[in-house]
């Protein structure tokens, strides 16, 4: 989550769901929280009942809109215009929380003279390399900043990757920073920001988002008036923001807004990243991603000097702030991986780690698979044949594998593509010619295994096993552990097997199936002392001399004693839930909470107190675990020029992961598509970008090829309507967990599409009957739901229709239907390589699709789309 990571330091929600009840206003955008997080939505309802204003901005009127005080429909893909206009509103109406912004953000920091904004270069920041199609971000740095690290440019890596840069900041040393506390210097961040958003006016919102000016102003007033010393406002978002070709920058815009209003680190404020399912936060903390190691440590890249631990540590650590401890976190991780085999002499096993050589993200390797470059694949906890963009390409690529292992509770579409997919029905694939050997392994369900979830609010909750799994079903932990054990047993003397030989893989097992103990794994993640095996209590216990082992430094403290698993604790003591589970880091429920107090250590107001300095006890105290050095007094001076670690930040710099200790309105390094958010149209959009000649995010990768075609950049007459895909409460993602359950299927049995009465009239669609939806990638059929909850929007003097399509269905299970993701293109946002699902172009016609005609007959050709 580099949007939050670069802005604040950590790639996680800054607040906790129960804290939403303390908000005075809540903006939900890029999410239908009531539908997809109904349990967490109880605290939004609580806030509303206490008088908070609830604002929902969404192309559709959803169950969330139904609960809101204000619903604003916007054209999909124009979020940055809307947020930019909110930021401008804050400037224009003197809503900047000045006393917070000056000490706690980089508003006063001065930028280099050669930095150029998108306003100057018509949609580009300085440093664009048209040939390489990417930015050299050097001019984005601060005035006087010293570059650290080695060969490659700050915040960028030749070989791709993004998550590893979640935190940003490693690229420059803050020693030479210049600032102007009056915020008057023309090149200080504050002034740059003001100029940057000066054209994001309410009129632009009306023209481009389709939200009437007056309605926008009403919402802007409601949200900004609920901020300041006495009040706070929160923002909730989900994949409605992330799944865009500029998703990270949308989240950045929200971060800027919340920093200007002083809403970060304070009760009832913050930005809540609503994660898509049970442990998605956990899957970036202990990553299932190719470019980071546990705790957001970057995976080493194949590049100059990459074989030396020294240069790796130098590149990624910082002199000041929490990242000064990078070597402690990393070496402790190596000791957890390789135990006694990792020694100072062998660089703590650094060279046993693989190197990133290219784009190994889902789409990167899937396109390789489509091109026949991949032999085998494990699929666990995922159903890409239904859940991933451009389903036809994804499924056809599977047919190029030699072997495919799928582990799931049911036979999902990914396992049955070879006989049941639409490609087989159409004759594009045939079981007779597919050479892929498919192994389907039965997996345990959630209740059939123990382990932890890390949820939306960084909260680890350990659950016990309720029942034994039936038959041969086994947990994922069982599978991975025993696979590792067998591989290790086969490790030979060759040097390529050295890592396997060195790996510690000795988790105790129990029961007749030799199930490894998940609490033993959690103990290792928490970390222990190598000498006596005692559990570590705190991140501060970690050492860089190999005397500690820790599987993920950010989780340190979750299992502080041999017999104390804090993730298992269930005695909630207060409204923030302390005593129930463990929130990383250090059980902080609201992170950066030093900002809830004034620079002098007193709360901004009695009503909004959270953490404050206790003058008698000489320590930080309050209603949450202080996210700060406990005994550093508020008046302790900063030693940014020569100090080290967090002590260099002094007593009033709450964003301790940043080398300068402040929140970043402007991100000097760590992002690939610019230091500030700028509006670009979606890769497929009905209109031209009205702000810049550059239509789309220049750094986004379209992966355009014959099997992944696009509509023309804007206003393609073949695809006149905007399409968004989304989820429903009643089903879950690609359906593996729900479409086999009758009690859920009867609630939403069939794929349907939501259209406005006006669009239905324009295309002759009939309620309850079939419609065929086409994009440049494919066609599908869905039942028609005509509803006034979908509004045609007036965009720049013309009508734009939007089409809604939930994506849960597939060809297996009890409730079947066409695969909505067949309509999407594989595209990559530059920082996290996510696809665009929320703003595409389509056409709709009455009637069913021809099930046997080749795709080319139903979809205009690739050549045509290139014309």
């Amino acid at each position, binding site marked *: 989550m580099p949007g939050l990571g670069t802005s604040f330091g950590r790639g996680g929600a800054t607040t906790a769901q129960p804290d939403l009840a303390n908000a005075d206003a809540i903006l939900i955008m890029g999410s239908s929280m009531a539908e997809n997080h109904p349990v967490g939505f109880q605290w939004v309802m609580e806030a509303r009942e206490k008088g908070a204003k609830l604002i929902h901005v969404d192309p559709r009127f959803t169950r969330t809109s139904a609960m809101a005080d204000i619903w604003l429909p916007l054209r999909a893909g124009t979020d940055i215009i809307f947020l930019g206009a909110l930021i401008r509103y804050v400037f224009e109406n003197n809503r900047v929380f000045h006393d917070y912004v000056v000490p706690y953000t980089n508003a006063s920091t001065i930028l280099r003279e050669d930095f150029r904004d998108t306003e100057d270069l018509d949609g580009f920041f300085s440093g664009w390399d048209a040939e390489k199609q990417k930015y050299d971000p050097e001019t984005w740095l601060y005035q006087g900043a010293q570059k650290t690290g080695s060969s490659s440019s700050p915040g960028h890596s030749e070989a791709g990757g993004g998550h590893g840069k979640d935190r940003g900041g490693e690229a420059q040393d803050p020693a030479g920073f210049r600032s102007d506390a009056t915020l008057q210097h023309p090149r200080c961040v504050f002034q740059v920001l003001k100029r940057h958003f000066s054209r994001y006016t309410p009129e632009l919102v009306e023209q481009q988002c389709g939200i009437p000016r007056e309605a926008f102003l009403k919402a802007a007033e409601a949200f900004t008036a609920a901020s300041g010393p006495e009040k706070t406002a929160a923002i909730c978002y989900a994949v409605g923001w992330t799944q865009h070709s500029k998703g990270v920058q949308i989240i950045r815009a929200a971060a800027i807004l919340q920093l200007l209003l002083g809403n970060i680190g304070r009760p009832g404020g913050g930005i809540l990243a609503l994660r898509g399912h049970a442990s998605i936060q956990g899957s970036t903390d202990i990553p299932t991603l190719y470019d980071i190691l546990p705790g957001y440590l970057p995976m080493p890249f194949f590049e100059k000097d990459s074989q030396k631990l020294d240069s790796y540590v130098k590149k990624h650590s910082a002199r000041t702030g929490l990242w000064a401890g990078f070597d402690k976190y990393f070496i402790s991780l190596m000791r957890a991986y390789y135990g006694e085999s990792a020694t100072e002499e062998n660089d703590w096993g650094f060279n046993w780690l693989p190197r990133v050589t290219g784009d190994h993200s889902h789409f990167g390797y899937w396109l390789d698979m489509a091109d026949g470059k991949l032999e085998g694949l494990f699929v666990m906890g995922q159903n890409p044949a239904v859940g991933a963009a451009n389903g036809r390409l994804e499924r056809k690529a599977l047919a190029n594998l030699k072997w495919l292992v799928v582990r799931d509770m049911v036979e999902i579409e990914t396992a049955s593509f070879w006989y049941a997919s639409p490609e087989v029905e159409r004759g594009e694939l045939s079981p007779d010619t597919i050479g892929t050997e498919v192994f389907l392994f039965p997996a345990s369900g959630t209740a059939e295994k123990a382990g932890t979830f890390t949820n939306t609010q960084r909260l680890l909750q350990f659950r016990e096993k309720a029942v034994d799994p039936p038959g041969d079903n086994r947990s994922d932990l069982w599978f991975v552990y025993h696979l590792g054990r067998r591989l290790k047993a086969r490790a030979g003397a060759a040097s390529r097997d050295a890592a396997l030989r060195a790996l510690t893989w000795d988790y105790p097992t129990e029961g007749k199936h030799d199930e490894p103990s998940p609490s033993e794994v959690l103990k290792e993640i928490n970390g222990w002392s190598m000498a006596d095996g005692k559990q570590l209590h705190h991140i501060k216990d970690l050492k860089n001399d190999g005397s500690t082992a820790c599987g993920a430094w950010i989780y340190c403290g979750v299992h502080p004693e041999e017999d104390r698993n804090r993730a298992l604790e269930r005695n909630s003591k207060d409204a923030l839930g302390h005593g129930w589970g463990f929130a990383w880091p250090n059980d902080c429920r609201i992170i950066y909470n030093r900002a809830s107090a004034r620079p002098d250590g007193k709360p901004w107001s009695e009503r909004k107190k959270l953490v404050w300095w206790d003058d008698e006890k000489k320590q930080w105290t309050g209603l949450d675990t202080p996210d700060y050095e406990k005994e550093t007094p508020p008046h302790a001076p900063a030693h940014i020029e020569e100090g080290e670690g967090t002590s260099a930040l002094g007593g009033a710099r709450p964003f301790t992961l940043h080398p300068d200790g402040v929140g970043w309105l402007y991100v000097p390094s760590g992002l690939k598509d610019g230091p500030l958010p700028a509006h670009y149209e979606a890769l497929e959009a009905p209109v031209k970008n009205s702000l810049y000649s550059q239509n789309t995010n220049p750094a986004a990768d379209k992966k355009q090829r014959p099997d992944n075609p696009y509509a023309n950049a804007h206003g393609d007459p073949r695809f006149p309507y905007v399409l968004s895909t989304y989820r429903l*409460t009643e089903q879950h993602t690609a359906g593996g967990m729900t479409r086999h359950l009758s009690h859920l299927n009867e*609630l939403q049995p*069939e794929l349907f599409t939501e259209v406005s009465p006006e669009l239905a009239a324009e295309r002759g669609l009939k309620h309850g009957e079939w419609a065929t939806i086409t994009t440049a990638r494919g066609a599908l059929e869905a039942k*028609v739901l005509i509803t006034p909850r979908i509004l045609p929007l007036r965009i720049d003097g013309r009508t734009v229709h939007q089409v809604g399509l939930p994506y849960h269905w597939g060809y297996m299970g*009890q409730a079947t239907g066409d695969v909505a993701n067949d309509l999407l293109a594989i595209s990559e946002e530059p920082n996290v390589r996510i696809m665009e699902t929320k703003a595409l172009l389509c056409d709709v016609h009455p009637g069913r699709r021809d099930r046997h005609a080749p795709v080319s007959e139903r979809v205009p050709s690739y050549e045509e789309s290139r014309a």
Partner: protein
Amino acid sequence: MSVTAFLTDATLCIGCKACEVACKEWNGIDEDGLQFSGFSYDNTGSVGASTWRHVKFVEQAPLPGLGGNSGEQVSWTFSSDVCKHCGEAGCLEACPTGSIVRTEFGGVFIQPDVCNGCGYCVTACPFGVVERNSKDGRAFKCTFCYDRQKAGLEPACAKVCPTESIKFGELEQLRQKADERIAELHDRGMTDANLYDPLDTSVAGVHALFIIRGDARTYNLPPAPEVPTIYLKKAWTSSALAAGLLFGGTLLAFLSAGKNGR
């Protein structure tokens, strides 16, 4: 044992349908069809033999007031319907086998092992709640989670409701709570909020109260439900009257014949 009740507050319902699913899971009820209805997000239709909790989705003109349906273009209201467990229950009175009983919690319970499927209760319910199943013809409806209540637990639907739209508790306390809530909603500009609890009709109030906005009929709730047996007195009276008249007439005929007899 105190009389228990539901208070379902439509102004707090987010339409998640967790109550429907929890009810079916706990009570082991089958799905009743996998058909797209086209009726907003409601694909289960109504309360019946295999749906004991049912969430209605009402798309209608804007409603005034803060929160809960702001849209100037449209409003979308949700409310979870259930058996009303009437103070005077039509089904119970109509049941000839004694299958339908009132429990110690004041709820109305059909004993499935006694029910013979005659269906009298179906026509006797003023809310259209009771239905015979298609397999063996026996009648089914919400049990008020009698088994859970006996074990000291709240009903499954109330247990899972994430927004406390479904509250469970002692009847009179909930009536009081409802009055307070409605006063609060009125204060906040939702002047059309009202309590559905037909005390002045023959059902004598319900044990499943509803806080709704505007006309009860929008929520498929009859404004003046009546227990069919209230017509019994009238029916017996007129029968008795008719019988009396007939008897009197016959008597009169004999008497006058006797008088005039030769």
